C-alpha cells in the first residue's frame, strides 16, 4: 500500500496518554512520502490534533518514535521547527496587529531576510485576496479573513512540510474554496501537507492519501477512492417510509432483489441501501415497497460511509 520512497514523516507506535486512562493517541504508525497531501480524518476528540502536536514538537510523546525529514522529534526539535509550518485550528493571530505585521512576526521568528519576507508577504496576501486590507488591524477583519491570515502565517517561510489543523472550520463556502485552492497550490509545488479534518468533502477533494482515526487509533487508510471502494461499488439510496409502516416490514422485500448489496435502517422510518447501478434500477426497488416513500436521495459512496462502516456511527455524532 505504501510506496517505497523516502518517507518525509515516519512514526512507529506513537502514543500519547494523558493520565492513566485517557489514551489520546494509541500506537499510530505513519509513513508519508514527500509531496503527499496526507489527511488525518476523524471526529472531534479522535486524536488528530494530538498527533499533529507531537509531530510539530509541541507535545512530547508518551512512547513510540517519530521522524520528520529524518529528524527525531524528541532530539531534533529545533531542526524540525525550521522546516515545518503550522496552521492551528484556532485563530492564533494577534488582533491588535495588521495582517502584514502578523505575517512579518512569524517570518522574523524564522529569521527570514527583510527583503525576502516583504516580497513573500505581498505575494501571499495577493493570493488570499487580502492585499487591500493588509494594513488594517486583524481585529477588524471578518472571521473568514482572519482564518486566511491564520493560514498565511503558516506558510510565509516556505516550509517543506505544512500542517493544517482543520483549516476551513466554520468558513463560508467561498472562503473555504479560497483556502482549498491555496492548499492545492502547495501540493503542486511538491510540498508535503498534513491536513486534519472532520469534513469528508475536504478530505475527499484534497487528499492524496488519508487515514481515518478514531479513539486514537487508525481504523482505515488509503486513497479516498480505495477507502470508498472497500464498501463495494454502487449507489447509495436513502428514503423514508410512511408513518404506519416499520422499516422491518420493508427491508426483507428489498433484500430479495439480486442487485442489492446491503440494506440497513438509519432510524425506524429511514432506510438506506447500497446497490450496483442503483440509480438506473430505482424503479425496480420502488416496486417492492408496499407504501409511499418520500425524501428520496441517491448518491455515491462517501468517506462518511467508510467511517460508518468501520465504527457503526457517523463522523459528526
Amino acid at each position: 500500500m505504501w510506496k517505497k520512497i523516502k518517507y518525509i514523516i515516519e512514526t512507529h507506535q506513537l502514543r500519547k496518554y494523558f493520565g492513566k486512562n485517557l489514551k489520546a493517541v494509541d500506537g499510530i504508525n505513519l509513513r508519508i512520502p514527500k509531496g503527499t497531501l496526507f489527511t488525518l480524518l476523524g471526529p472531534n476528540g479522535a486524536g488528530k490534533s494530538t498527533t499533529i502536536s507531537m509531530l510539530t514538537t509541541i507535545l512530547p510523546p508518551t512512547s513510540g518514535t517519530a521522524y520528520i525529514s529524518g529528524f527525531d522529534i524528541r532530539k531534533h526539535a529545533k531542526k524540525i521547527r525550521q522546516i515545518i509550518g503550522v496552521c492551528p485550528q484556532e485563530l492564533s493571530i494577534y488582533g491588535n496587529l495588521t495582517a502584514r505585521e502578523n505575517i512579518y512576526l512569524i517570518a522574523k521568528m524564522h529569521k527570514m531576510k527583510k527583503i525576502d519576507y516583504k516580497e513573500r508577504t505581498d505575494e501571499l496576501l495577493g493570493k488570499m485576496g487580502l492585499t487591500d486590507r493588509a494594513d488594517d488591524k486583524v481585529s477588524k477583519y471578518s472571521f473568514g479573513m482572519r482564518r486566511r491570515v491564520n493560514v498565511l502565517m503558516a506558510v510565509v517561510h516556505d516550509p517543506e512540510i505544512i500542517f493544517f489543523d482543520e483549516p476551513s472550520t466554520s468558513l463560508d463556502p467561498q472562503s473555504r474554496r479560497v483556502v482549498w485552492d491555496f492548499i492545492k497550490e502547495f501540493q503542486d509545488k511538491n510540498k508535503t501537507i498534513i491536513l486534519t479534518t472532520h469534513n469528508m468533502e475536504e478530505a475527499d477533494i484534497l487528499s492524496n492519501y488519508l487515514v481515518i482515526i478514531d479513539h486514537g487509533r487508525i481504523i482505515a487508510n488509503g486513497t479516498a477512492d480505495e477507502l470508498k471502494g472497500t464498501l463495494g461499488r454502487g449507489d447509495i439510496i436513502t428514503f423514508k417510509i410512511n408513518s404506519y409502516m416499520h422499516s422491518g416490514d420493508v427491508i426483507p422485500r428489498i433484500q430479495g432483489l439480486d442487485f442489492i448489496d446491503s440494506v440497513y435502517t438509519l432510524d425506524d422510518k429511514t432506510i438506506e441501501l447500497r446497490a450496483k447501478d442503483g440509480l438506473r434500477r430505482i424503479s425496480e426497488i420502488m416496486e417492492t415497497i408496499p407504501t409511499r416513500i418520500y425524501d428520496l436521495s441517491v448518491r455515491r459512496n462517501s468517506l462518511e460511509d467508510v467511517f460508518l462502516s468501520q465504527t457503526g456511527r457517523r463522523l459528526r455524532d
Partner: protein
Amino acid sequence: MIAYPVLLISMAFFAYGNSNYNTIDIFTITVINNDLLDEENPEFARNETSIFFCDAISSKEYQNTLIIEGINIHVLETAIDLLNSLRIDAIVVINEYFSEALYKSPTHEDKLPIVDIITKDNILILAELSLIVVEIVNSISFNITGAPEAEIQSATLGGLYFDYTLFDLLIPGIIIGSLSICMSLLAIAIAKEKESRRMHRLMTTPVKRRTIITSIVITQIITAIIQFFIAVLLSQLLGTHALANVNWNVIFFIAMLYNLSSMGMGLILASFVKSARNAALISFIITFTMMMIGENYTIPGEMAGSAFIPNTYAVDAVRNIMLFGRIGWDIIGFDIIFLSLFGMTTLIIGLVSFNRKYAMT
C-alpha cells in the same frame, strides 16, 4: 498598568492625606507629666492644662484606644524599663512649660506646648499615637482663646523621629502592591497566549521556548518598572513626606527583588491555569491575600503568617529607607536575603512547572 497605583494612591490620599485618623488599635501607655515639676510662674495657672490633658487621655472618649499603665511617673528611666519589657506600647511625655506655652506666657511666648511620644521600635504605633495626642492637645487648645496648636515630637528608643501622616506610611505598601499586580499581569498574559493557541504557533518556530517565555516576562518587568515610577511620582505629587535624601536606587532595587517573586508566582500560576479568566481570578485572590497577610497596609507584626510573605519584607525595607533613611545591612539585610531567596525559589519553580507543561528546548 496605570489604574492600580493611581487608584490606590488616590484612595489613600483622600482617606489619610491629613492627620485626622481614628485608630482601631488599643495602646497601653505611660504618661510622664513634667509640667507638674515646674514651680515657676504660678500666675499662668500652670499644671492645669496638663491635668486636663491627663484627664482627656483617660476620658471615656479614648478608653477604647488608650489604657494608662502609669501616670505621673516622673522618672523616664522607669518608664523606659516598662517600654523595654513590653508592658507598655509607648511613653507620652508632657513637657515642662506645657501649660505656660498653651496660655502664651510672656516668658515662654516663643515656645509651643510640646508633647513627646516614645515607642520602642514600632513606627506605626508612633504614627497612630501622634495623631491621637495631637487631637487631644488641640481639643484643649480650642477651649483657650488664642492658644497655639501643640507640637508633637515623636521618636522611637532607637532614635527615629517621626513626623508623617498615615498616608506616608501607606505609600511603601502601595508601591510594593503595584508590583504584586504584575503577577496577575504575567499569568493572564501567558494564559491568553495559551488560550488563543498563539503560544502553540510561537513554539513551532525555531525560536527557543526559553526566549519566548523570557520575552513575556521582560514585558511584565517593564510594566512593573513603569508601575513603580507611577506610584513613586504620584505619591510625591500628592505630598508624601519621604526623606529629602532618600536613596531611591535602593528602593528600586528592593522593588525589583520583590518583583522576582511576583514573576515566579505568575509563572507557576500560568503553568496550570486553563484560561485568562481563571488566571485573573486566582491571581487576584493570591495577590489580595498576600497584601493583607503581608501587611502592606497595616501595622507590621500583627498578622499571623506575615513572616512567610515577601510583601512583609519588601514593605518593611521600603518604609525604613523611604521614611527613616535606615539603609544599613543590619536594618534591611534580612529583608534583602529573604526577598532574594524567595524570588529565586519561586522563579525556578515557575520555570520548572512551565517546562513540564511544554518540554522546553
